[in-house]
């Protein structure tokens, strides 16, 4: 397969500024079905996310951003 337009590969990245820039369409309550799906939660796997964030926090110099709370080290 030949990718004719290499820009297509960047699409997910381009969506972000594009969407935040445009007017937001009102979405009625009965149109929010997909948004209510568990896989559409911002953090669908909170237990795993907790472990991963702790691992990255222990091995990289920056942490945080995803929420508030938590503590402890275990960070050798």
């Amino acid at each position, binding site marked *: 397969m030949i990718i004719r337009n290499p820009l297509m590969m960047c699409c997910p990245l381009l969506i972000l500024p594009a969407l935040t820039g445009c007017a*937001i369409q009102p979405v009625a309550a009965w149109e929010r079905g997909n948004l209510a799906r568990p896989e559409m939660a911002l953090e669908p796997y909170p237990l795993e996310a*907790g472990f991963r964030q702790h691992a990255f926090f222990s091995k*990289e110099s920056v942490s945080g951003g995803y*929420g508030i709370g938590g503590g402890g*080290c275990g960070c050798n």
Partner: protein
Amino acid sequence: MAVTDHGLPGRTLTALTGAALALPGLVPDSQAATPTERQWDVGYFYYEEGDDRMRVESLKQSLVLPLGDQLDLTLNGVRDSISGASPIYNLPEIRCRDGSVITPPVISVSGASGTTAAGGPRPERPALNAGDCRIDGARQVMLDGTFQDVRTAGDFKLNYYRGETTLGFGAGLSREKDYDSNFMSLDWRQELNDKLSTLTLGYGLASDTFTPLNKTNFSEDKESHQFLLGLTQVLGKNDLLQTNLTFGYDQGYLTDPYKNVYLLSTNAAVEEVRPDARRQWNLLTRYVHYFDGPKAALHLDYRYSMSDWGIDAHTLETFWIQPLGQGWQLVPRLRYYSQGEADFYRSYFESLPANGHYSSDYRLAGFGAISGGLKLTKQVTDQARLDLGVEFYDRQSDYGLQGHADSDFADYGFTIYSLSLNLKF
């Protein structure tokens, strides 16, 4: 009673909706945010670094209990068993014209005891300015593998739902042989704009005490403050965007007493010293999109981080949740991380810098890391879901974007295996 011509369509809908809402008992009182359902998550996680370095076995659980119509309580518990070797400092390697590779002698190691590869009498360091020998790279000196610790932590979070407002309060503690942490958090979430937007304000405080095992009668404190301002916005029926701005302020003993720096001028390894305050900003954007065709969800997160230790970092993460039918889901995941080095980081030092801050901790070096993972989940019954996952992490100093690619001696990788169960009951 006059019959008006039917008015503007927008007005018609407003008029009918208004009259309908005046009907008794038509809309539930509890239309706003409501407590979460009862559920229990339990998971086993195994973290393993390459080259027989550190291993962590972790058991985690999280129980969510609704308490009436306006409250829910989350109870979290974790027990980590940590063992294995970790790097203490870096020894420069000296390469000479005759082909020999010499590591310089270490006169004294304060703090942790290091193991150098050389046995017997230590060689004298050859002159570096004569032209025959030069420093070419470095290698890590490890804190030996007998290191073991157990971390036990528990916390609770109470959410109070009132109309379109949710208030959260949480607190907890974490205990290790050498590190105690007590923490609390407060947050306020407000749904706006017919629940299309959620504004979040949060504050967290952690108060930690470090009593390193390699020192006697030594104890130091650290305090961390975190502030969060977040906005979650429904962009369309398949699109959700969250932007969080966080500011963290850490104050107190931020040094890692197990980490040393090697000084070439004196052939000594001495304990590192970090500034006693750090300010860190994160800007996180998370975007979720639902694809009607494959019935899949795409998650895309980008975080930009900046700290007054001179480190800036980019984190880009994406995962895709693909249902396979019959309750199976496959979740491939990809993460890229890149950080610049701290202002006071060097692999080793000629002599102690004048400002009094120095560290050779590989985590303060510039590097990049790529990780990829795969997760398989199966809805076993209406109530139970089983998750199985693996993720590989590869740290390479030349994966970094910020151009500090000289810490390749510290490159390593780790693997996380996870097995967890989610029960709704």
